[in-house]
């Protein structure tokens, strides 16, 4: 029997046949065994033209180059900082990748990132043995101070962010919280205790119901109801920011005298 055996968006388990015939291309979460395309992960079937994918619903984070992640400093050595990513592999930020400032040999590294600090960083390299290199040079990357850290299933991060940031934007607007989402499932929330509580609650709700359709509307209604119940003031907190890394590319024209910070 040729053709696709299961419906698009069906939940599929490892070892189940999704399609038969050489017309189809096995993509993420599937493999080919003779003429059959078989799922090798628990997930949701996604058929895009001739490509057959299984979108995983679970699984720990696997570091990928280009991902923006939130990590925590667990060790400081002469050559840099060791960062915990909530996955099987830890990562390193070497001195040259931390900041465009020149760091002298023997300088006190804790003034940049201290033990226990969280930061948002970019994965710049992953070796075959899964050794990970991070960089915090670049737009948007910084130490995350204050606020609360919550953990979600990394497979649900795209849902939490939404198309072009629509879902997380919805939550930010309704609660007034500042929310930073790492691809590794670590999320930083900053606001008043009430605002943070609602933001965390809503993010977990998106996580639980991520595979349902019409979620954005549902969450919108949920937020409206909860803001009313809690009598929540969604005015964003004024937050004192540490000086940010200014990326070289964003400067226009000749360099000017820099006043104030730095």
């Amino acid at each position: 029997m040729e053709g696709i055996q299961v419906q698009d968006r069906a939940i599929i388990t490892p070892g189940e046949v999704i399609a038969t015939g050489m017309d189809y291309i096995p993509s993420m979460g599937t493999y080919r065994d003779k003429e059959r395309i078989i799922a090798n992960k628990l997930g949701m079937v996604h058929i895009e033209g001739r490509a057959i994918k299984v979108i995983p619903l679970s699984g720990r984070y696997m570091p990928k180059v280009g991902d923006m992640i939130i990590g925590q400093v667990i060790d400081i050595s002469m050559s840099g900082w060791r960062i915990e990513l909530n996955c099987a592999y830890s990562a390193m930020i070497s001195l040259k990748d931390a900041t465009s400032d020149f760091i002298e040999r023997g300088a006190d590294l804790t003034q940049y990132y201290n033990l226990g600090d969280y930061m948002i960083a970019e994965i710049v390299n992953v070796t075959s043995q899964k050794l990970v290199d991070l960089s915090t040079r670049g737009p948007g990357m910084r130490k995350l101070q204050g606020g609360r850290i919550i953990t979600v299933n990394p497979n649900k991060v795209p849902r939490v962010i939404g198309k072009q940031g629509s879902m997380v934007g919805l939550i930010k607007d309704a609660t007034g919280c500042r929310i930073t989402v790492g691809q590794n499932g670590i999320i930083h929330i900053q606001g008043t205790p009430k605002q943070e509580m609602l933001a965390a609650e809503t993010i977990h709700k998106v996580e639980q119901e991520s595979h349902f359709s019409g979620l954005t509307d549902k969450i919108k209604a949920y937020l409206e109801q909860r803001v009313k119940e809690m009598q929540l003031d969604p005015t964003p907190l004024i937050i004192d920011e540490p000086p940010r890394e200014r990326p070289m590319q964003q400067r226009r024209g000749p360099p000017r005298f820099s006043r104030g910070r730095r």
Partner: protein
Amino acid sequence: MEAKAGVIKNADGSAMFKMGDTIAYAAVYGPRDLYPKFMQNPKKGILRCNYNMMPFSGSGERVRPGQNRRAKEISMVTEKALLPVLELEDFPNAVVDVYVELPQTDAGSRCAGICAAAIALADAGLVMKDMIAAVSVGNLDGNIVVDLDKDEEDFEGPVADIPVAIIPSTGQITLLQMDGEITPEKLVKALELAQETCMRINEVQRKALKDKYAGE
């Protein structure tokens, strides 16, 4: 037979599998950092299984806690039963820990444990070529039977207890043990019965995973 997925919140994947009066829970943690470091392999990860009966689970005396030799052996055959479908190269230097705990046993506990473990591994999002299903078949007084309970295992006449684990899509066998008496011909019949039964068990396993996400 009853199965449920995602029953232990702290775990990355988990399941409960009940066969008759034997209840097995499995919790999977990983891939995660592997200690002790000397066990790390830069080419591939390891699967570590731990089988344990809760002290009050047996139908006789209390089972003293701690890994006895029987538990160690079952842990090892559980690991070997699950390995053939896993892709260890996906997680070099790391470990996937599978813990099987039984609050109630009535024979067939290692098979129930393997069935639960397979669901839990899939629930944890691991890459698997297929799942694994397991059942005890046997020779009871000349008859080939499936899923012996404790009274049958203790039968005074000729009896053989044969735990078998199978890859459903190919029928290949990843666990085979036997104690008792059986002729080679009866053994083949018993294995065929095991393969057939495991297909049915596998349906229950898959349903448990799908039910976790039901309601769409």
